[in-house]
Each structure stands twice: as structure tokens, then as C-alpha cells.
């Protein structure tokens, strides 16, 4: 696991949640806040100079707020479960699109596949390249990134993006 990449993942996720859905978060060190919560898990896979995927787990209870804030619905208007999950898919899509240039530089071209909800049949990520946690009002969320080659120390964007200590 790459700590610098994990930090970037958390920063971009927090920024995207705030800008797209007006959901404010702060980083968390561990998973304690996630225990006992039912999570909705969404993934997006990408290909390019290197392949991989990104995953976001969010409390089910936060989905409605996420979708309502993104869509700006009228008071009392209810959104379907499909619309709520569509909002989550768009969120991971934007997070992924904003993380990749941070870690791979602004010249590399990536293609993102359509995001999908994770089910029991989805492959398990045993060794993600990065993982981070965020606490929000309705619980905690986890964000992970998988990279299909062992290049955690070679990512061109990380050194520059990290800046001086």
C-alpha cells in the first residue's frame, strides 16, 4: 500500500463529495466508524498506461442525501433507488477521473469503463494500492484504488503532487 497515493485518494474524494454533493467530510485513520453499517459499494475500472480500478463504499443511509444534493430536487421529491445508485456511480467516475492525472501525470490518457455496483460475485481486492477513510455526518466511507502492476513507487505524479514535507 502506498501512503502518498492513499492521501491523494482521500483528498480528491473529499473534494469531489464537497463540490458535487455538498457533503463535508474529514479523514479517518481506521475503519471503526464503518462497523455495523450497511454499505453501498461502487467500482469503476480504467485502462491506459496502467490498468486498475477505484472503489467507493458509502453508507446506504447517505445515498439519498448524495443523490438529492447532486440533483437539486424539489422539497419532498423522492428519488428512486436506481437514481441514488446512478449518483454514486457518477461520483466514483469523477473521483477516478481526478485521481488518475494526480498519480500518472497530465500527459497520460486513460479510458474509464462504466461504473458498476459491487455484488457478491465481484472479484475481491486482496491487495489494493491505496485505501483511505472519510467520516461524514451519516457514518464513514472507504475509498480504495487497485493498480494492475506493482508500480506504487513509480507513479510519476506522486512526487510532484506531494510537494515538500
Amino acid at each position, binding site marked *: 500500500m502506498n501512503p502518498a497515493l492513499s492521501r491523494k485518494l482521500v483528498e480528491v474524494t473529499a473534494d469531489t463529495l464537497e463540490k458535487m454533493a455538498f457533503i463535508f467530510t474529514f479523514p479517518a485513520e481506521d475503519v471503526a466508524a464503518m462497523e455495523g453499517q450497511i454499505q453501498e459499494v461502487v467500482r469503476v475500472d480504467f485502462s491506459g498506461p496502467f490498468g486498475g480500478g477505484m472503489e467507493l463504499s458509502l453508507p446506504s443511509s447517505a445515498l439519498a442525501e448524495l443523490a438529492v444534493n447532486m440533483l437539486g430536487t424539489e422539497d419532498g421529491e423522492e428519488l428512486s433507488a436506481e437514481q441514488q445508485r446512478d449518483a454514486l456511480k457518477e461520483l466514483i467516475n469523477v473521483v477516478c*477521473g481526478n485521481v488518475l492525472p494526480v498519480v500518472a501525470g497530465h500527459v497520460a490518457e486513460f479510458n474509464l469503463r462504466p461504473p458498476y455496483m459491487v455484488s457478491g460475485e465481484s472479484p475481491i481486492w486482496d491487495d489494493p494500492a491505496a485505501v483511505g477513510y472519510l467520516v461524514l455526518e451519516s457514518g464513514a466511507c472507504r475509498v480504495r484504488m487497485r493498480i494492475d502492476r506493482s508500480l506504487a513507487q513509480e507513479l510519476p505524479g506522486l512526487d510532484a503532487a506531494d510537494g515538500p514535507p
Partner: protein
Amino acid sequence: MAVNLLIVDDSGVMRSMIKKSVQMSGLQIGEIHQAANGREGLNALDQHWIDLVITDINMPVMTGEEMIGQMHDRPDLKSIPTIVVSTEGSQTRIERLKRKGLRFIHKPFSPEMLRDTVKDVLGSEVFYEPSA
């Protein structure tokens, strides 16, 4: 003059966000058409008079870049103003799109960013006068 829009994005939520942002912008809107990928976008362009295309890049079936390429190959579509709204972070790809005369807005975007870009592309005369 009312502007007919085509919004191309595989996310229904993002299409709704763009639609709502445009509706809030003061743009004089005629019809708003939607498509979930580049292929559907080209079909919509064949069926309707469109004054402005707002499109994503990464989509299944046909990407936005492929759709724009086909638009530029057709004399009847090549001059339609097009704004790309995408998470795209590759300057290589963004510059390639800009060389085709397209405008680019990075997600996440604000309604003001979209309004200002549409105003730059179409001119302020297609916006309602702000009330005094």
C-alpha cells in the same frame, strides 16, 4: 432565439445536473434532447435541429471523442458548437479536443462555469436580459 440543446452523457444523474444548470442559467431554451452515448447522440443530431451539443467523453458504445470525430466529418454537423464536460485529466486529449474548436469543462463543475462557457460559445444575445 431559443436554443435547442443536446446533452450526451451515460449518467442520467449527470444529464439532469447539466440540464438543471442550463435551465438556471438564463439561456433561452427551446428543446432539450438527451442521449446516453455518442451513437445515440448522432441519431439525435440526425433527427432534430440542434444548436449546441454538451457531451461527455468516456461513454460505452461510442465515446464523445468518436462522436465529435464523426460530426467533424459531416458538413451538416461540423459547425455545431460543442462543449465537452468531462472528468478528463489528460492534457494531451484535452488539447486534441481544443484544436478541433471545442470548449472543455472539467467535472466537478459549477453552474456558473457552464453558464459562462455557453455564453462565450453562443453569445449573450441568447440569454434573457437580467431583470433590473
